[in-house]
């Protein structure tokens, strides 16, 4: 490199040196001195992470609306005769299943990274089942609630929040199914396993969002 030559207008902060102090996983996201176009996996994960951060802001906007409405309308929140979302055992089990599925999909991806395809596929299939279980459970819960989408603010916010989240769970499950089918094609991983890594990250995202929604919708009682 051109150590002997200094260009005027170089960075006022020594970015390259600062980067050395970052943890490894963050360092991989931030190429400084010229890009690393040949690292397709890194490039893809950077883009996908950026996308997920952006997507979380849509959820944030729904959550902001929910909190603002709930704080300013606390007395009229539940229409007469409506008890709102219930923190039942059913719901708790559903939540536990969804959240623990994150701890199933991660080892699955790790197996894939080490080339253990059979173990990967079993754990991946288990994740699909757990995700599907959550979706069915959510549907059952919805059908037993004593309020509809148009039942006041509680209905509007509850169904939009859980519905939007459920849409993401469904998308995650579909992505997992696609990845599972593709894993059966010989030579599928010759160019890396970006798809599986992205799907795993997406699943973690879905689970983290659920932690927030669960707390806001079920734990926060009037």
């Amino acid at each position, binding site marked *: 490199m051109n150590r002997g030559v200094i260009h*005027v*207008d170089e960075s006022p902060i020594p970015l390259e040196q600062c980067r050395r102090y970052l943890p490894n996983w963050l360092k991989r996201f931030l190429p400084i001195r010229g890009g690393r176009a040949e690292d397709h996996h890194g490039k893809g994960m950077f883009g996908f992470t950026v996308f997920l951060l952006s997507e979380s802001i849509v959820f944030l906007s729904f959550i902001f609306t929910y909190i603002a409405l709930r*704080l*300013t*309308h606390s*007395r*009229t929140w539940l229409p007469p005769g409506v008890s709102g979302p219930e923190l039942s055992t059913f719901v708790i089990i559903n939540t536990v299943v969804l959240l623990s599925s994150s701890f199933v999909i991660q080892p699955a991806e790790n197996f894939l990274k080490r080339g253990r395809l059979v173990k990967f596929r079993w754990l991946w299939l288990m994740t699909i089942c757990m995700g599907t279980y959550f979706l069915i459970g959510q549907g059952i819960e919805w059908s037993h609630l004593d309020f509809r989408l148009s039942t006041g603010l509680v209905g509007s916010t509850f169904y939009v929040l859980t519905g939007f989240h459920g849409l993401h769970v469904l998308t995650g499950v579909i992505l997992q199914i696609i990845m599972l089918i593709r894993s059966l094609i010989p030579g599928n991983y010759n160019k890396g396993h970006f798809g599986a890594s992205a799907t795993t990250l997406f699943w973690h995202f879905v689970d983290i969002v659920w932690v927030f929604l669960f707390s806001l919708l079920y734990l926060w009682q009037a």
Partner: protein
Amino acid sequence: MVRFLEYLLIAGYIAVLLVVSHWIGQFAYSWMPPEATAEAQKIDSLFSFLVSIGIFIILGLVGMMVYSVIFFRASKNDYSEGHPSRGDLKLEFLWTATPTLLVLWLAFQGFNIYQQLNILGLGQIVHLHMPLESEPAYAVSTDNQPKAAAETIYVYVKQWDWSFRYPNNVTSHELHLPVNRRTRLNLHAKDVLHSFYVPAFRLQQYIVPGRDIDLVVTPIRIGKYTLKDALFSGTYFALMDTDVYVESLGQYNQWLTKAEEEPTPIKNQAVVEYSQPPKTFFKSNWYTIAPTQPLIANERKVMNDT
């Protein structure tokens, strides 16, 4: 020597700019509508100040650009470089720090004037008026309280007209205000968002249906002004201009008594236009909500518009 002359020229240029911007700033008062409230006077002086600063910056930089265009043109085939300077840290620091101080000063001036408006009563108090709520959601802090108003006029706005209910329960479509007295306006909207805007008062406030919004105003100049709806509120919202009469207390009371006996004629332009649409070059015939006409302009019944 040359450097000294350069600095002298720059100083001279700045001095000329200061004089010109101050001079134009004085004109700014005439660009505004008549000042019908004390608040209007303060806002106009803020505006004049902002205009002066703005003109200074615009003329200063545009002047430099014009000078460059005149004196630094290169001939058609001359592709040699100008001067190699890539920057000057001191100058860049100066032109970052100075505008920062300037805008913070402007914000401070704006804040000062805003505080004075509050004390005079222009600040609005917003109460959330929910049927089952008993406390306002926004805490009404003590420094939000305007000084007590002499009386309250209830303002009701809907698509597409204004009506006012006066202390003696007279209802009218015209707003009459006594001069030099504090009057509280209690604003209510029936259907969609509207905005209460009187340019001569320099006063504007959105009215949210379901909320109870108070404004206190002290007009200081007798005259006839216009109240407009400044927030798009549907098909005929351009026809919502209504008259504001600021008059002496005697005349105001006279009008109130007269209005009790003889109702003022209804001038709901939206209804007129809806029933007889004017001829236009293009007609879309798209749907519009039908404007409703109140039955009698001045009624003594209580309007239940919350």
